[in-house]
Each structure stands twice: as structure tokens, then as C-alpha cells.
């Protein structure tokens, strides 16, 4: 299969990319390209130009700072997958990275690209929502930051406006006894999630949940933060009954559709199972 004809612009900076996108609404960013190439081959999109940002220098960083982690727009999934320092802070990040696509795809695909593509079954959004991360956007009128939760507005739709590109992802470093986990149900290696649930918990020394955030993917038109589920956890000790109640709420908060990965009914049932597993997995750390 051949992609449709398009032009190609290789830029040396994100500012240059913004300038192109500002004047040409049909131009599209090429980062890892691992979702873009199939879309082109299937002729689902026909961009005028691809704006290749792969030669922009200093954009592949994973910068661990005292209060936050900054991940550059060109950091590949594989970089996250093998970063031992990140494992010590948020195991959920590595757990997510390693379950995306397959090794070759992870070698090129980027976190920023996954967010911009906004597949409703993508893995990163669940985890980044649970970590309360935000997307730093560069546009014609400067930069702005949008929480990942609000960034994805629907299937394959984001808050990116005309001329805007993602420059980095910012993940706050929460203090205290933090546990995180991402559990994905998939039909086979390399597939998108049937459902995916990410959990972040802050526990008191007595084991009470002081704070919780839960991100769920593939269980609605867009990945979402399961606030009712969180409420069932906060202020409580995580007994089996408490976890069960939370998992039940997660199921009620979800609104999956029937597709090749299962019926809506099946997926709702799986949200419950996977939420339970994700909470237990986080606790086991």
C-alpha cells in the first residue's frame, strides 16, 4: 500500500513547525509515525505536508526534577520502558510503555504522538490521567498547559488548536507514600486495550488512602478520570470489600462501545475486573 501524495517539510525547531501549521491547516506533524503511517496507507487522512520534527534537537529528553518529570515530544516509548529511575518513582509509567504495540513500534513511537493521535483505546492517557499529568502546548501565541484529562476531547480529537504542537508532557511528582500501577487487558500481544486501568494512590502510614486518582482507557469515547471510583477509596483502608465497591463504581462510570474487542457488556464487566487488579497491583508495591 502506498500513502497518498504529500509534501515533506523537515524542520529544525518546533517554532518552525508552528509556523507551517499556522498557515496550512492540512499539514500534519510526523514524530514517531507509528499511527500516522497506517492512517496514510488506509487513506484515512490526506495531509498536504508532513512536518517532520525528528531532527529537532533536544526534544528526546526524560528529565527527572525534584517536583516533576518532563518528557520531551520526541521521547520514544522504549526510553520510558528502560528508565530505571522512572521505575522507582512511578512503576506505572514503565508498565504502560512496555505494553504498547511491539518492540519495533516502541523504538519509534512517542508519548506525545500517542496523545495527539488520541485513539480512544490508547494506553498512555489512562496512566497520564492517573498521574495528573499535563500537556505543554506550543502555538502561535506562546505556550499553554492543559491537563491530559481535558486534552483529549473525543475519539481522535484533542484540544490542539490551529498551529499548535505538543512540546512536552509534565508529570507532577507527588510526595508521600505513592503507589501506581497500570493494568491492561488485551486479546493478544501488541493489540490495543480491551480496557486499561491506571491507579495512583497516596497511603498514610496506617494504610489509609489519603488521595487517589484513576484513569481508564478504552471504556468510553475518550479516556477519563473515574472520580466516583476515587471517592470510594479516599479515607478508607483497602479491604477486599472497599476495593470491590470501587471496582463496581468504575464499571458504572464507564461507557464502552461494542467492537471487535468485545461487546459493551463484556467490556463493562472487564472494567470491574481490571480496576480491582490495578488497585491490588498498586498496593503490592
Amino acid at each position, binding site marked *: 500500500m502506498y500513502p497518498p501524495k*504529500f509534501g515533506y517539510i523537515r524542520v529544525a525547531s518546533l517554532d518552525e513547525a508552528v509556523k507551517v501549521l499556522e498557515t496550512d491547516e492540512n499539514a500534519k506533524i*510526523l514524530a514517531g509515525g507509528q499511527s500516522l503511517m497506517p492512517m496514510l496507507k488506509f487513506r484515512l487522512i490526506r495531509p498536504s505536508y508532513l512536518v517532520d520534527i525528528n531532527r529537532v534537537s533536544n526534544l528526546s529528553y526524560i528529565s527527572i526534577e525534584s517536583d516533576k518529570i518532563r518528557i520531551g515530544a520526541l521521547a520514544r516509548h522504549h526510553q520510558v520502558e528502560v528508565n530505571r529511575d522512572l521505575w522507582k518513582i512511578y512503576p506505572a509509567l514503565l508498565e504502560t510503555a512496555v505494553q504498547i504495540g511491539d*518492540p519495533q513500534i516502541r523504538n519509534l513511537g512517542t508519548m506525545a504522538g500517542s496523545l495527539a493521535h488520541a485513539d480512544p483505546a490508547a494506553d498512555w492517557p489512562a496512566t497520564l490521567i492517573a498521574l495528573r499529568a499535563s500537556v505543554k502546548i506550543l502555538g502561535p501565541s506562546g505556550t499553554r498547559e492543559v491537563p491530559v484529562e481535558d486534552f483529549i476531547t473525543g475519539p481522535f480529537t484533542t484540544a490542539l488548536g490551529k498551529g499548535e504542537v505538543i512540546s512536552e508532557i509534565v508529570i507532577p511528582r507527588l510526595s508521600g507514600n505513592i503507589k501506581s500501577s497500570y493494568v491492561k487487558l488485551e486479546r493478544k500481544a501488541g493489540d490495543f486495550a480491551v480496557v486499561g486501568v491506571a491507579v495512583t494512590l497516596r497511603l498514610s502510614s496506617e494504610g489509609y488512602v489519603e488521595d487517589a486518582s484513576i484513569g481508564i482507557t478504552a471504556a468510553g469515547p475518550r479516556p477519563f478520570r473515574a472520580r466516583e471510583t476515587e471517592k470510594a477509596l479516599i479515607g478508607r483502608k483497602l479491604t477486599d470489600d472497599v476495593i470491590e465497591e470501587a471496582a463496581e463504581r468504575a464499571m458504572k462510570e464507564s461507557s464502552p462501545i461494542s467492537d471487535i474487542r468485545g461487546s459493551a457488556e463484556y467490556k463493562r464487566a472487564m472494567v470491574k475486573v481490571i480496576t480491582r487488579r490495578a488497585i491490588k497491583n498498586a498496593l503490592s508495591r
Partner: protein
Amino acid sequence: MATTLKVGPEERVRIRVKVNGVWYERDVEPRKLLVHFLREDLGLTSVHVGCDTGHCGACTVIMNGISVKSCQVLAVQADGAEILTLEGLTKDGKLHPIQEAFWEKHALQCGYCTPGFVMETYWLLSENPNPTEEEIRRGLSGNLCRCTGYQNIIEAVKLAIQKLKELKAV
């Protein structure tokens, strides 16, 4: 190789790519995929088109030290890059230890997926020279084989690990 470059949809762009140690210069359409560049322009037919949608891994090559599916990369993206294909593994007519291991363990039947498996194994072992069986299976999860049931492929990778260790010891 210019950092900033603009090519129209109807234009061709001159690219320079180092493949298996040799620099090549060719004019390509921006939409040309790396797999088609390697097969059609350079005649490197070990690089197979299998599914053409990024699932099967038959088109796997090494680009600047990492394994990629060459049907998921544009030729123009490889401008200035170093590419290694199966053809580049063989030295002076002698098979690479990974190729030998695939042969000895009968890790292929029809052979269509083999170049992709060999190249991904090459990358896997360059990242992790001593993987567990679980790591081998995960490491090759981006490559599909419809004949063997994978068992002999796993055995071949294990044998390749031994062969490469022995080579290093010499």
C-alpha cells in the same frame, strides 16, 4: 544533509542513505516508504512486505542502531541514516551466528518472516545479550510467523546467544 528541507507533493527529493556500509544517493517521492526504497531502488529483497500495516515485522531493519518496521518509515526520514539489512549481516559469504542458529535449529519453514526475525533478534541481543526465554518471547512479539509455532525460533535465539558468547570469548 540539510536540517530544514521542503519538498512539494509532486517533487522528488535527493536522499543519501548508508546501507550495509555503502552510501547510496537516490531521488525519491516524499511518500515512498523505506521498505520500497530498499527493495525496489536498492534491490535488497530480504526486506519483505508482509502485512504492510505494521503488524508482522517481516520488513524489520536496523536504522541508526534501532530496529524499525521499514513499512512504517518514509525513505526521506532515512536521509543521512545508517541502515542494516539481512544482506549486511553476512560477511565474506559466511552466515552471521544468528543466521547459523536459525538454520541449525530449523527455525523456519516457508522463510518469509525469517529476515525480519533475524534482524529483530540482532537488535534484541545487542540491547540484552543474555535474555531469558520470557524476554526473548516479548522481544520478538512484533514479528509474526505463520508456520513454525515459534518454538524453534526461540530455540534458535537461545543457540545464537551461545554462539555469540563463544565468539566473544575467543
